């Protein structure tokens, strides 16, 4: 670790992993509710569990992004973070908000209160005071990292990262706008939900991936930057108007069906570019970095994002297809693999890379860490396949044959059982991961040089 303030990332990453544990636990509980619908129906209704599952996902990913920025920016800007105090204050606000959300959801406090109670908008259910807290935290963060970058070296990686984070915060403001017209409500709602995950988050993802590739493969910065620009350009080109694929059935004009179908079909391009980028960098790389687990997560991220976001997204993005599949388990399959591949793997990759460095030790427990990758990814892929089959049957029975929703659900338990099994694998994988990162052990894969290059010379790890 070159800069002291990079250690700020540690607090963010640890909090992120704690919430990650909460998120997958909620997932497992919901997986069980699917096969045994009365489970906890009084204490923890399904909708509350689902809110906690998706909200904790978003928050821990955001914490992961913030942590990544605090780790990457000092190295990119070649100076310490402007104000470590502000960074910890920001984390404190986010933790307070998260705790507030959990308590408010679980006990349904202040029902109907604009400021204190939960709101009915899916994913944006947070009470207004929490939303304000998130905004304040984001402002503190942007001030802090922007000041650091402005005073230091400006690189393509930090520029793209900042562009993504600034846009993330600006788009968040639409979470405050809740028009009474349901069509407009949904439209602006997607400006947060879609333009985050299929727009500006991809910039953050590309930039973190570029940083990891730079460190892990030792490819020239110039090459990495060229790829980065192409990825960013194609992501924004396809992603912004690709929002149209959410406008099909919410009451917006019908021409959005064509705009949405055509532009969102191109959303596969940046994901393909990111996958190609990661692999080409490894092939071209001259560095044999000792942290193999971080490389595995990075490559896994690019591949699973391509399949989960790109392929599974394209599967139901054309409006002629989506007319039938909308809101079935096909959507759940896509949502799970896309979030897992693009963002979960990404944050776990940088945690795997940065944690040993921040704790000033060799990358321990790599075998365990890599086992957790295969277990978690295998579980997630199996869940994706199972839900895809369930969704196909559901689409046919419900949308083609016209059967009742609950009658169709009664035909699907086999798939929900298998999904629960897949969920168990994911949770075990998550536990293994957290253990491998947090608990010190003596196992190191290779002794040998810290970084041996293919041309023979050896240098110290970064």
């Amino acid at each position, binding site marked *: 670790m070159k800069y002291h303030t990079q250690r700020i990332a540690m607090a963010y990453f640890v909090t992120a992993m704690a919430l990650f544990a909460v998120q997958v636990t909620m997932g497992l509980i919901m997986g069980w509710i699917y096969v045994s619908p009365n489970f906890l129906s009084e204490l923890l209704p399904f909708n509350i569990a689902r809110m906690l599952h998706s909200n904790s996902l978003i928050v821990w990913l955001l914490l992961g992004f913030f942590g990544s920025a605090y780790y990457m920016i000092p190295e990119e800007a070649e100076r310490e973070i402007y104000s470590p105090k502000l960074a910890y204050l920001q984390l404190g606000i986010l933790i307070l908000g998260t705790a507030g959300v959990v308590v408010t959801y679980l006990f349904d406090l202040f029902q109907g209160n604009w400021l204190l109670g939960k709101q009915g908008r899916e994913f944006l259910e947070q009470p207004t005071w929490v939303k304000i807290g998130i905004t304040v935290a984001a402002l503190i963060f942007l001030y802090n990292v922007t000041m650091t970058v402005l005073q230091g070296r400006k690189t393509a990686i930090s520029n793209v990262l900042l562009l993504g984070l600034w846009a993330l915060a600006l788009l968040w403001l639409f979470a405050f706008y809740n028009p009474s017209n349901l069509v407009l409500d949904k439209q602006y709602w997607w400006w947060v939900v879609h333009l985050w995950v299929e727009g500006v988050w991809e910039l953050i993802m590309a930039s973190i991936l570029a940083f990891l590739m730079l460190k892990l493969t030792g490819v020239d910065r110039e090459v990495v930057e060229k790829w980065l*620009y192409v990825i960013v350009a194609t992501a924004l080109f*396809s992603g912004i108007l690709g929002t149209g694929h959410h406008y099909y059935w919410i009451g917006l004009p019908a021409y959005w069906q064509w705009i949405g179908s055509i532009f969102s079909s191109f959303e596969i391009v940046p994901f393909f570019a990111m996958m190609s980028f990661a692999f080409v960098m490894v092939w071209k790389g001259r560095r044999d970095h000792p942290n193999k687990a971080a490389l595995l997560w990075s490559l896994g991220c690019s591949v699973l994002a391509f399949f989960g976001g790109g392929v599974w997204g394209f599967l139901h993005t054309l409006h002629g297809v989506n007319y039938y599949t909308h809101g079935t388990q096909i959507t759940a399959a896509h949502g799970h693999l896309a979030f897992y591949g693009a963002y979960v793997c990404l944050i776990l990759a940088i945690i795997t890379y940065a944690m040993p460095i921040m704790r000033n030790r060799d990358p321990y427990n790599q075998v365990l860490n890599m086992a957790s990758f295969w277990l978690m990814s295998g579980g997630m892929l199996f869940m994706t396949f199972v839900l895809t089959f369930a969704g196909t049957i559901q689409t046919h029975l419900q949308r083609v044959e016209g059967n009742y929703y609950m009658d169709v659900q009664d035909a699907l338990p086999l798939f929900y059982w298998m999904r629960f099994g897949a969920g168990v694998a994911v949770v075990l994988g998550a536990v293994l991961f957290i253990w491998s990162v947090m608990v010190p052990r003596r196992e190191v894969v290779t002794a040998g040089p810290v970084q041996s290059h293919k041309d023979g010379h050896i240098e110290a790890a970064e």
Partner: protein
Amino acid sequence: MSQPRSPLADLPGELIMWVLIVSELAVFCVCLLILLVLRLGDPALFAQSQDQLHRAAAGINTVVLVSSGYGAARAVAAIRQGAEAPARRWLLGAAGLGVIFLGLKSVEYADAISKGIGVETNAFFTFYFLLTGFHAAHVAAGMVILLLVAIRPQPDGVQAGAQFWHMVDLVWVLLFPIIYLLQ
């Protein structure tokens, strides 16, 4: 250690401009392809709808836009010689022809709207308005770019502006026969 020569090294202009151009062409081509496929489903409706368009105005617009492309090309040649003032004149000329294009296009739109034709009228007009509307937006954006690079003409900037302008040109040359002429 010598790196193998990148195939992108010989690319004229900025890589990112080529990424944009290829992306634009891909989207417009896919749109045109869908239009052609939908046309198979109801050729009579498409032919009848097409007859309501102004072929002559669109034909004139083709000449206007292609001529303005010539102007942009001359601007690139001029600035490479270091001739700033002529380059600026060619750029302004190209952008001026863009104004004529948009003027004629507005007349076409106004006429269609006065006939009660809109984007929701039928599949042909949905694509007519989407394709020509997106294209017109690019003409407007291209004019802004040409004017920006004309303020202090530099070879790289003028080349990038001309690249974009030629792309807008090319897209129109693809749109015009398929939307207006194809019988």
